[in-house]
């Protein structure tokens, strides 16, 4: 028999939970309501695949920005994933305990650096280097990929390391007992066994990369055109919102919310995929 006080506490917690969830629902609903009219007007195909973004003339095609987001994110993965996996293996296998206690907080610190500092560092070092040695204006997909690749390292490393450590000890022991070297064990046994965790980590890293705004506004060049090479400037979905939200009104503003909807959907798909993969094992 629940006493009155018990029922009251339960109600209070329920109230807290409901108000929280309704606030979170509010933002979702708000974004969808604000964004849907323009998608309805322009048509989802024209919006997502439209090549021309010129709000002052009524063109709301976000395809150049989608290409921008995707190319920079894939670039970030190419730069970041190999390094991240190496670092995870380092933490799980090669690092002596003392070094581990330094390296792990170091990775956390990497995650805590403000994105504007990353962007600034990129403008100071990465962009001029690209301009000088590779050509082009320097503000480019490549610059964005490098910066984002570094920024998503902590995300991928932390989850991958956990996956590696979660593997049963006897996997490794058995392999070593059979005479395999450490690397052989890692390559043919541990990595494949941790595969789903690694894939989930990478997907979450991609989600982080797609959502980044400030660092990339500074290094991408923000041109609203389809890139032809990694040395070309691009604009992503996020930087488009960031640059234009101060002054957008009417349909233009709706189009920015609609871009938000697209980002929402992308993140949800990424999260659902990551969850599905981790549950599968």
């Amino acid at each position, binding site marked *: 028999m629940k*006493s009155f*006080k*018990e029922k009251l*506490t*339960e109600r*209070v*917690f*329920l109230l*807290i*939970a409901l*108000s*929280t*969830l309704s606030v*979170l629902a509010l933002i979702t609903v*708000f*974004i969808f309501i*604000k964004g849907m009219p323009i998608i309805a007007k322009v048509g989802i195909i024209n919006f997502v695949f439209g090549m021309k973004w010129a709000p002052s003339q009524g063109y709301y095609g976000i395809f150049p920005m989608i290409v921008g987001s995707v190319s920079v994110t894939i670039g970030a993965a190419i730069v970041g994933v190999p*390094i991240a996996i*190496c*670092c995870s*293996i*380092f933490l799980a296998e*090669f690092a002596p305990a003392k070094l581990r206690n330094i*390296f792990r*907080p*170091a*990775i*956390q*610190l*990497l995650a*805590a*650096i*403000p994105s*504007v*500092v*990353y962007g*600034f*560092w990129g403008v100071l070092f990465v962009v001029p280097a690209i301009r000088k040695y590779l050509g082009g204006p320097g503000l480019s997909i490549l610059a964005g990929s490098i910066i984002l690749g570094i920024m998503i390292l902590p995300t991928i490393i932390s989850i991958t390391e956990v996956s590696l450590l979660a593997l049963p000890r006897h996997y490794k022991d058995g392999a070593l007992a059979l005479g395999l*070297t450490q*690397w*052989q064990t890692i*390559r043919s046994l541990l990595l494949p066994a941790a595969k789903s965790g690694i894939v989930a980590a990478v997907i*979450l890293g991609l*989600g982080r990369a797609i*959502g980044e*705004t400030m660092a990339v506004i*500074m290094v991408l060049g923000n041109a609203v055109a389809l890139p032809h090479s990694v040395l070309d400037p691009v604009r992503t979905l*996020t930087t488009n*919102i*960031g640059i234009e*939200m101060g002054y957008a009104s009417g349909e233009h*503003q709706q189009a*920015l919310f609609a871009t*938000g909807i697209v*980002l*929402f959907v992308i*993140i949800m798909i*990424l*999260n659902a995929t990551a*969850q599905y993969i981790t549950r599968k094992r």
Partner: protein
Amino acid sequence: MKMNANTSQKIAKFTIWAAALFVIAILFSIIAYILVKGIPMLSWEFLTDIPRDMGRSGGISSSIVGTLVVTAVAVIVATPFGIGTAVYLTEYTREGRITRIIRFSAESLAGIPSIVYGLFGFIFFVIYLNMGWSILSGGLTMAIMILPTIIRTSEEAIRTVPQLYREVGFSLGLTKLQTITRTVLPSALPGIVNGVILSIGRCVAETAAVILTAGSALRMPESLFSPTRTMAVHFYILAREGISMDNAYGTAALLIILILLLNVGFNMLVNRFIAKGR
């Protein structure tokens, strides 16, 4: 030619160590560069004087205050609601479809780009609710932004508390509330605090969500309705506009130091707490 197992081991070891050192080098170069250029700027005047001449001279006291207050608003608003929701989800409901949907939603919302929160905050708080560019607009926007993270980390922390703790509580005759507050929550505290500290770090470093909600005014804010320029925003504007690179570095250095303190402070807190109790 098939590679000798020992050779591949050597190459792999070399590559992996190289990768780790490379990451440390990058971390070091970013932080060292900012600190070396910025710490010389951190005089008493810099910390206590307000920006003058658009930030070309003077200090950053208004930004420091602005950053602290906006973060405080966000954390104070979000933490009770976040922890309370987590408690409800784990203690009062059964594991089922609804909790899984809620958990998935919290995960997804935690991944939404901060610029989208900024867009929402700008249109909803600044314009629609007519709060204008203010600490309140910025703080509430960030509160919504960190809520999913706090819910998620708190829920995880609470869920890992062994059922035994709760059973002991009941067997001692404690009410559910007492069990929660005296056994479950304290045990989950490191994880919860971890989530809160992470969120504080995120608030301090955030730019996209604040620049159009808390505004970019340079004066010392007087009330929760005053606009303010957080340190991250101030750094962004100074660096972008090339107004004063020295002051930009000083601001960034202070930011980094603050973040270092947060991270280090948390680690020490957790270690002391765990060492004390176990």
